[in-house]
């Protein structure tokens, strides 16, 4: 067990920092610290240009294998990249669903043709992706997916019908990966397919969902005879569950460290305000700031354990990965409350009418979704108890 980085890694760190310093300016200066959760709708166009700037420098998909066009960075280097990226205040990545989810899935489960067709656009930062998982009334329960995919022999295409919801970045995206039921008679995990679907077609309609923040990062996506080429199903019809489960694993990668640096930026802002407005002398606030700091630090250590493949005490399960979502989501929700309580009554005053929120206000409201999307805290606790502790599964209707 060792915390320090090698001299080569430290050199890599300087390289990243230097590149960011040199490039995150001019037209990109305004993007600093923007585009995070609750702020994802801001500067979408400028941030896509930034995506391409990154690609020019070879800074997209740094963890992808070299044979698929990535930089082939080691875990340590990925950690460093994400840390420096966030430290520099570089903006929230509009390409992160492609880079972090779609790409790795296509690399792991996709055909060579799919890899050739889709990976370059992700690498170049020119093609954006979104995720078609949740459905109205189904919550986080993939087994309840009702969107149907029927193969039209005449057209030689899959025809999709149904509705997805809570799809972020759907307006900006070029592609969506969609879980749909290929076998209309099937139930639960069986009979699902995993599709790569172009968003630029008449069969797809995107409607923004107005959120608690007044803004619309999340969308409903309606599929009305939307088409998908025969070769754009990943794996076979019926493999959807397997692919989706594999993809879940990619969500708990090095990107958590970048997320944490965003959290750190938020906490830094809170500390700055507390010092300025005297809340830092309020003993109850002191305890809460210290608690937030303590848990954020540990969150980082926990990610380092995840990345080092440290297993749980029984040597079998990655328990530190199992608890991660519940931990960070709950932490982040508390951070939002802390931000408001540090601001005191000033927390209630907006930047401008009619409903322009400050960054911290937006964060405070937006974090309420953290404990809901991607499996609510309640679902997470079920998963932890069942997979991590071997407790009985929730009864399911037959």
């Amino acid at each position, binding site marked *: 067990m060792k915390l320090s980085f090698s001299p080569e890694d430290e050199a890599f760190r300087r390289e990243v920092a230097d590149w960011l310093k040199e490039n995150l300016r001019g037209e990109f200066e305004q993007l600093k610290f923007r585009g995070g959760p609750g702020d994802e709708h801001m500067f979408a166009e400028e941030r896509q240009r930034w995506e391409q700037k990154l690609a020019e420098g070879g800074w997209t998909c740094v963890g992808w294998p070299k044979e698929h066009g990535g930089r082939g960075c080691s875990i340590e280097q990925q950690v460093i990249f994400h840390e420096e990226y966030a430290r520099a205040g570089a903006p929230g990545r509009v390409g992160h669903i492609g880079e972090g989810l779609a790409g790795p899935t296509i690399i792991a489960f996709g055909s060579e043709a799919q890899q050739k067709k889709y990976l370059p656009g992700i690498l170049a930062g020119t093609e954006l992706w979104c995720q078609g998982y*949740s459905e109205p*009334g*189904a*919550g986080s*329960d993939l087994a*309840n997916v009702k969107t149907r995919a029927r193969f039209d022999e005449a057209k030689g295409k899959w025809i999709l019908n149904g509705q997805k*919801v*809570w799809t972020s970045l759907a307006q900006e995206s070029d592609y969506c990966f969609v879980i749909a039921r290929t076998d209309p008679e099937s139930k639960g995990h069986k009979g699902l397919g995993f599709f790569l679907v172009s968003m630029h077609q008449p069969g797809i309609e995107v409607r923004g*969902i*107005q*959120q*608690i923040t*007044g803004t619309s990062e*999340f969308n409903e996506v309606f599929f009305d005879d939307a088409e998908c080429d025969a070769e754009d199903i990943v794996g076979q019809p019926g493999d959807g569950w397997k692919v989706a489960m594999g993809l879940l694993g990619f969500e708990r990668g090095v990107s958590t460290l970048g997320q944490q640096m965003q959290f750190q930026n938020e906490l830094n802002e809170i500390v700055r305000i507390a010092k300025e*407005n*005297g*809340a830092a*002398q*309020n003993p*109850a*606030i002191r305890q809460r700031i210290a608690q937030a700091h303590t848990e954020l630090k540990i969150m980082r250590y926990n990610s380092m354990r995840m990345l080092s493949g440290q297993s749980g005490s029984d040597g079998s399960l990655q328990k530190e990965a199992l608890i991660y979502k519940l931990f960070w989501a709950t932490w982040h929700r508390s951070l939002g409350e802390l931000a*408001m*309580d*540090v*601001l*005191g*009554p*000033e*927390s*209630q*005053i*907006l930047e*401008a*009418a*009619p*409903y*322009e*929120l400050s960054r911290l*206000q937006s964060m405070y*409201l937006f974090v*309420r*979704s953290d*404990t*809901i*999307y991607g499996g*609510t*805290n*309640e679902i997470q*606790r079920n998963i932890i108890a069942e997979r991590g502790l071997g407790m009985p599964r*929730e009864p*399911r*209707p037959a």
Partner: protein
Amino acid sequence: MQFAFTEEQQMIRDTAEQFLAEVSTSEAIRSAMETELGYQPELWQRICGELYWQAIHIPEAYGGMGLGQVELAAMLEQMGRYLLCSPFFSTVCLGANALMVAGTEAQKEKYLPRICEGLTATLAYTGISAARGGGRWGADAVEAIAERDGDEFILNGTLRFVPDGASAELLIVAARAAGTSGEAGISLFVVPAESPGIERKLLPTMDQTRKQAEIVLSDLRLPADTLMGAEGDAWPQLQKILQLATVAQAAEQMGGAQQSLDLAVEYSKERAQFGRPIAGFQAIKHKAADMMTRTEVARSAVYYAACVAEEAVEGGELAGELGEAASIAKAYCSDAYFQNAGDALQIHGGVGFTWEYDVHLHLKRAKASEHFLGSGDYHRERVAQLLLD
């Protein structure tokens, strides 16, 4: 001892509930909260004209109904529950209370009947330092300066976080003599809001159901007859006004906590997941049970505080308990409402996060009301001072 509503009180409560369920619908709230005024004048006129709620605890001598703080709390509970957008809280719980506690006989005779007729009012006492240290709501938050000039006073300063401050027609203003601090040197004045020297700016707020304003006083010149109570020695009166307002705020919060619970339970019975209503999952049931526990505890705290408030107004034997009872109620209700609203949002899942459902309105009102007149921590520290110092 009878710690239950009388039949008359129960009737007042039920009437308020029925009326508000009908008029303060989700649509009505939304259309009111999007206006600068923050309420529908027609509804306010109906309340003042048909129901006479604004006169509820104003003595009959001034044209009021002569009821008390308990009846007021019963009504506020329902207003908090249905998120009524109206100038009721500012006019009645700040303005009328201030006049009743600190007004001269002439001022009461002049303004209380007009409030009974629908005049709106509010209290402006906090400067920007109210936001320091997480929130300051005591005498140290009074920052505006009042200087004597012969028979007149000249007021200067910025007042912030004033409920309905941009729309109220009558202002009660707190200011202090230059060079004083803490509880010393504070005076109260009553002044029409449209007077020269008063500039008012609406502050856009996260909770849109209750408006706040900043009020700038620039050489506001006031005649001697605007002075309420003793010059430079009004803190005890201001404190009592604030304590009454604190109880009133807690009553609204308790109503909001109840509604958050009700919305969550109702939704959980309708919403199915994994093949059954989520109301059947123990995680949801237990969360709801904790919400109900908090609500009922909050209710007990509010009813008690309202009884004490009534004794404080009437000079009963428990009058001295008002500060403690108000802090107990506000500390508990602030936390209970915010916790319940947050839990309600979580039980709603994704839709709780949308603008369309009402649960976010409660989350926002909960935080706003927590930070008005002092958070749970703030009031617990006040209780600690009574116990430990």
